[in-house]
């Protein structure tokens, strides 16, 4: 009897650990796509924030974008604590200044657009943050699932009766 209780307890603990790990993975593994806009922010509370001459974005020691005016760059990021290094050249021929940026990404948003001029002016979030909404692309007509595979013998074809119906 005792062995049995121990076994049940062990199984229970195992499940608990797995669930905990899964939950942790869901938090730390959430991926986001971050877009950086080097665009002039027009007329935000009466003020205009001009686009920079050039911005170099580095994420995780990797240069992901080199943005001229009105350019957009992107990077993927796993987790919510987003870090990037910006190398900003404000005016033509000016000195590059380096900013290290830490951002908290909202868990539920897939694509995040950041307006860099607004961000660096430390404006409130609503000024530089917007959600990226993927454009609805025209899709090809209904795909027929289950055609073609490495072996040319899909399970689908297994009942290949579709042949005749149109024919009778």
């Amino acid at each position, binding site marked *: 009897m005792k062995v049995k209780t121990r076994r049940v307890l062990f199984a229970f603990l195992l499940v608990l650990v797995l669930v905990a790990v899964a939950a942790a*993975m869901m938090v730390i593994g959430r*991926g986001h796509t971050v877009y950086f806009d080097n665009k002039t922010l027009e007329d935000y509370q009466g003020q205009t924030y001009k686009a920079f001459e050039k911005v170099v974005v580095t994420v995780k020691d990797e240069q992901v974008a080199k943005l001229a005016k009105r350019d957009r760059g992107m990077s993927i990021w796993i987790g919510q604590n987003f870090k990037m290094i910006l190398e900003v050249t404000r005016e033509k021929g000016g000195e590059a200044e380096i900013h290290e940026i830490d951002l908290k990404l909202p868990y539920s948003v897939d694509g995040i657009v950041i307006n860099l001029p607004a961000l660096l002016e430390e404006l409130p979030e609503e000024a530089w943050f917007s959600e990226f909404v993927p454009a609805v692309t025209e899709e090809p007509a209904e*795909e027929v699932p289950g055609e073609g595979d490495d072996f040319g013998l*899909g399970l*689908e074809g297994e009942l290949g009766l579709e042949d005749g119906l149109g024919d009778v």
Partner: protein
Amino acid sequence: MNGKKNIPAGKRLLELVRNNAVPIMFIIICAIFIPMAGFSPSYLLNEIVTRMGRNLFLVLCLLFPIMAGMGLNFAMTLGAMGAEIAVILVADWQIWGIPGVVLAMILSIPFSALLGFICGTLQNMAKGREMITSYIINFFINGWYQLIVLYVMGAVIPIIHASIMLPRGYGIRNTVSLLNMRQCLDDLLAIRVAGVKIPVFTFLLVGLLCLFIVWFRRTKLGQDMRAVGQDMEVAKAAGINVDRTRIISVVMSTVCAGFGMVIYLQNIGNLPTYTGHAQIGMFCIAALLVGGASVEKAGIGNAFLGVILFHMMFIVAPGAGAFITGDSMVGEYFRVFLSYGVITLALIMYEAKKRMAKSKAGQELAAAQVKKEDA
């Protein structure tokens, strides 16, 4: 072992050849085909290493049911389906990278375990024809899988992203991109030796499974499983719960197959939703058999050798076919033919041997009875 020394070398060699006819045949085929296909050695090596990382885990999971005497588990596909459902969900929740892989693996456990349990129970109802039953279960569950993925997902199970959904608003697309998960296990600790990328971490996982199998064989449960595999009646008489042991072996196999499938998919980088699992069972079984395994006996070595030889043949066959006949399709059909052929051969050898053993046992019994009567 010592007894073998007395047998003349020629006979021993013959014995060796006979016992390993299939691997030797494949070595010869590969030896002939490789020069014909004309691939560079580094390309071949790279492909083989990639495919080993991709497939070994899946092939190894076949060992459990063989241990329990249930033959080749054609229903390992069930684990693959469980993993695919998990991977679809994980892709939809946008959990990326290694956390995504880990989550997919954990999430696949309940699905594969449930399917494995169903499969084991049905196989217990069809003792003596486990293999054909597992083969049909495969198709049957595939029907349910399609029902879930094609109609329930998006309609009942919420799917957030339109990018993986069919345009009609429910059901999953033909392919689900796993770009953000792609090769994240393989790239971890990966090293390059002379242009060949070795996915060290994936191999570590495979090594871990091998260790587990070796360890498992020695546990009480592993011993029970082998006893059941040898003889169900005897095992039953010894107080082993035969049905339960058999179900456990199938569940272990499907759960491992689920993990294997996640590894496979992260390597491929996208999920062919409706065909991804279709041929997995058949590929893995063929590979294991090519490695010299039989229906009732298979080891880790068979899996390694089998994956290398089978995939070598698979890579070079179209090129060789084009070289011989001028039509690469012939080569492609040829490799399919060889895969089916080797499974057929193994099944025939297994059944013939079983019959022979049975008739021998019968004869021995008859002889014993005659003796008894004489006495």
